[in-house]
């Protein structure tokens, strides 16, 4: 069996295994899995409203997935997408609230601000990794909490317009449109999905078609070899974290400028960043893979909201997603099974 085929089959097997285990859990708990999955399907595709909601949910997942995947390709694990996402959200809302500009400048400026905020937040772990060899996993986790508390503090004290929320962003910075909303009978869909798809292309082009992308991937494969070939490893490490943070920041802008239109004090993490890890892993860290994985998780998450109609708690989907991550991570064992399987076929 070719390596390419194995690479495609592994995530598919992981998803199937996740769903099988989810079904077993439902059976053991005395729920009807068929009814539950029908409810999930209707919750995701029942009518245009639900499809609009799925698209809205998929948008930040794609971007968060791209952020994690981009860093992975350079051999870095960015668990800090959650934090970069939150600061991006705040930066976008800040621009959206503060300035009065025509839409053609205001919207790009707000997204740019989110990019810069996310990029700067990721710059710190990148710099510490490059300069002091500090493991980026720990630093990004710590940066997540620093982001959460700092952003909450700013929203609460500097931008609070009552009930722990900022003011609504100006219409000129909004990604929402009447037309899209009406078309999907009032869902919270917005134009962000176009930006997310463009970002998929950017990630693919940057990594596969440019010299810089080649260098970044080389550093990801083998730092010593890249160094020996005359590439600046430290510069590439910092750059990859910053680009990763930019993607995460844009994901935050999607929530700030599209879904919500404001920023509220967060009681805890939104989970977008952590789901981004799941998306990136399942998508094999490629742009196209991230797109499809985000689509799957978006469908599962929105569909899950209707599962209580069949009497099943929506958390079942979280269990399935966690199991999928588990099986993708343990792909070593899936690969061995697949290889055994294919060898037998040859004989």
């Amino acid at each position, binding site marked *: 069996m070719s390596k390419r085929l194995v690479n495609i089959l592994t995530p598919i097997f992981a998803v199937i295994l996740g769903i099988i285990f989810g079904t077993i859990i439902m059976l053991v708990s005395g729920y009807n899995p068929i009814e539950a999955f029908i409810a999930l399907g209707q919750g995701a595709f029942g009518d245009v409203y639900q499809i609009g909601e799925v698209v809205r949910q998929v948008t930040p997942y794609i971007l968060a997935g791209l952020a994690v995947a981009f860093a992975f390709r350079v051999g870095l694990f960015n*668990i800090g997408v959650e934090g970069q996402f939150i600061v991006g959200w705040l930066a976008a809302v800040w621009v959206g609230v503060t300035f009065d500009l025509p839409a053609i400048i205001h919207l790009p400026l707000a997204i740019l601000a989110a990019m810069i905020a996310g990029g700067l937040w990721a710059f710190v772990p990148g710099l510490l990794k490059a300069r002091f060899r500090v493991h980026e996993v720990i630093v990004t*986790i*710590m940066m997540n*909490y*620093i982001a959460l*508390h700092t952003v909450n503090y700013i929203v609460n004290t500097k931008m609070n317009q009552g009930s722990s929320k900022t003011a609504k962003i100006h219409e000129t910075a909004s990604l929402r449109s009447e037309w899209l909303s009406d078309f999907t009978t009032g869902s919270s869909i917005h134009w962000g999905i176009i930006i997310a798809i463009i970002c998929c292309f950017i990630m693919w082009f940057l990594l596969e078609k440019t010299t810089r992308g080649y260098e970044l991937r080389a550093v990801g494969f083998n730092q010593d070899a890249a160094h020996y070939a005359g590439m600046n490893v430290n510069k590439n490490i910092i750059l990859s974290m910053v680009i990763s943070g930019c993607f995460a920041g844009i994901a935050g802008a999607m929530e700030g400028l599209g879904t919500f239109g404001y920023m509220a004090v967060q009681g805890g993490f939104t989970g977008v960043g952590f789901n981004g890890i799941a998306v990136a892993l399942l998508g094999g860290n490629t742009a196209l893979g991230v797109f499809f994985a985000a689509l799957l998780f978006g469908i599962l998450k929105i569909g899950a909201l209707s599962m209580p109609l069949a009497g099943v708690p929506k*958390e079942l989907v979280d269990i399935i997603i*966690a199991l999928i991550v588990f099986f993708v*991570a343990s792909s070593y064992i899936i690969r061995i099974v697949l290889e055994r399987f294919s060898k037998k076929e040859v004989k």
Partner: protein
Amino acid sequence: MSGLLFSLSNTVLATASNGHSGLSLMQILMIVVPSTLLWAAPLVFTSLGGVFSERSGVVNIGLEGLMVIGAFSSIVFNLTFSDTFGSATPWIALLVAMAAGAIFSILHAVAAITFRADHTVSGVAINLLAVGLTMFLVKLIYDKGETDIIKHSFGKVDIPILKKIPYIGEIFFQNTYWTSFVAIIVAVIAWFFIYKTPFGLRLRSVGEHPMAADTMGINVTKMRYYGVIISGALGGIGGGVYAQSISQNFNHATISGQGFMALAAMIFGKWHPLGAMGAALFFGFAQSISIIGSSLPFLSNIPNVYLFIAPYVLTILALTGFIGRAEAPKADGVHYIKGSR
């Protein structure tokens, strides 16, 4: 939790309005120290768990999830059996939490050691799974989003004999919690285990240089399984302590970041049991100050955001080497594959 905060701030206010215009140092200490010990206890247990796992060479980002499992199982046991066991319930529930954490951590061990999964990814999966599974079960068992408040929790106690020591007794041993002292004792035991017994030497050796350990006849896989399972047990206890002394019930936000803070404490304590304990006590101090600080005279002007982020900033500084460099065990997060070099 809000109930507890309320009662804490009430205590402060009551003490403050006790005729004096400000609080004496003694009064401040009598508020701050018990509260620090309260918040530190779960962190101490869990960070010790982290030490065991990472010393054996398995990165454990899943501490948060293990705490969730411990919190959930202790609350469910407490609610179910409080009539049977009476005031001993929290302690028995703690044992249940320990067992649940240990069993759940086997998942991480199997993935990270046997299936050669990336340790960090597997840890993330543990965290996601723990929250999903426990909330699923809460809805299955109680048919609502959170459990009831437990009847028997770890209440305030005066430690016998020690409480009579002048000054020190009043500050450290009155109005305090047994669990905090158990945590400190466990930290000392953990230090003894890791540094003074053959088991500890083996545990550390598979985390530093698994191949050398293997040549000396140590079963690397087995030692790493022990490390992870002990961390699961301690993480479960940490969650059980938090749930039964601070939150008093279980919902999706009961454990929100305590596991990661314990991870930070482990690193800030340089992967050493007593260091981790010290760091956990300090982080407990920061947490309790951020909650009661607004009622203390000298802290009311400082925005509590600084106290909230202090543990995390300090950990980054410690890793960077500004406060004595923290070095992880050499083979932390590295798979041991027999025969590879």
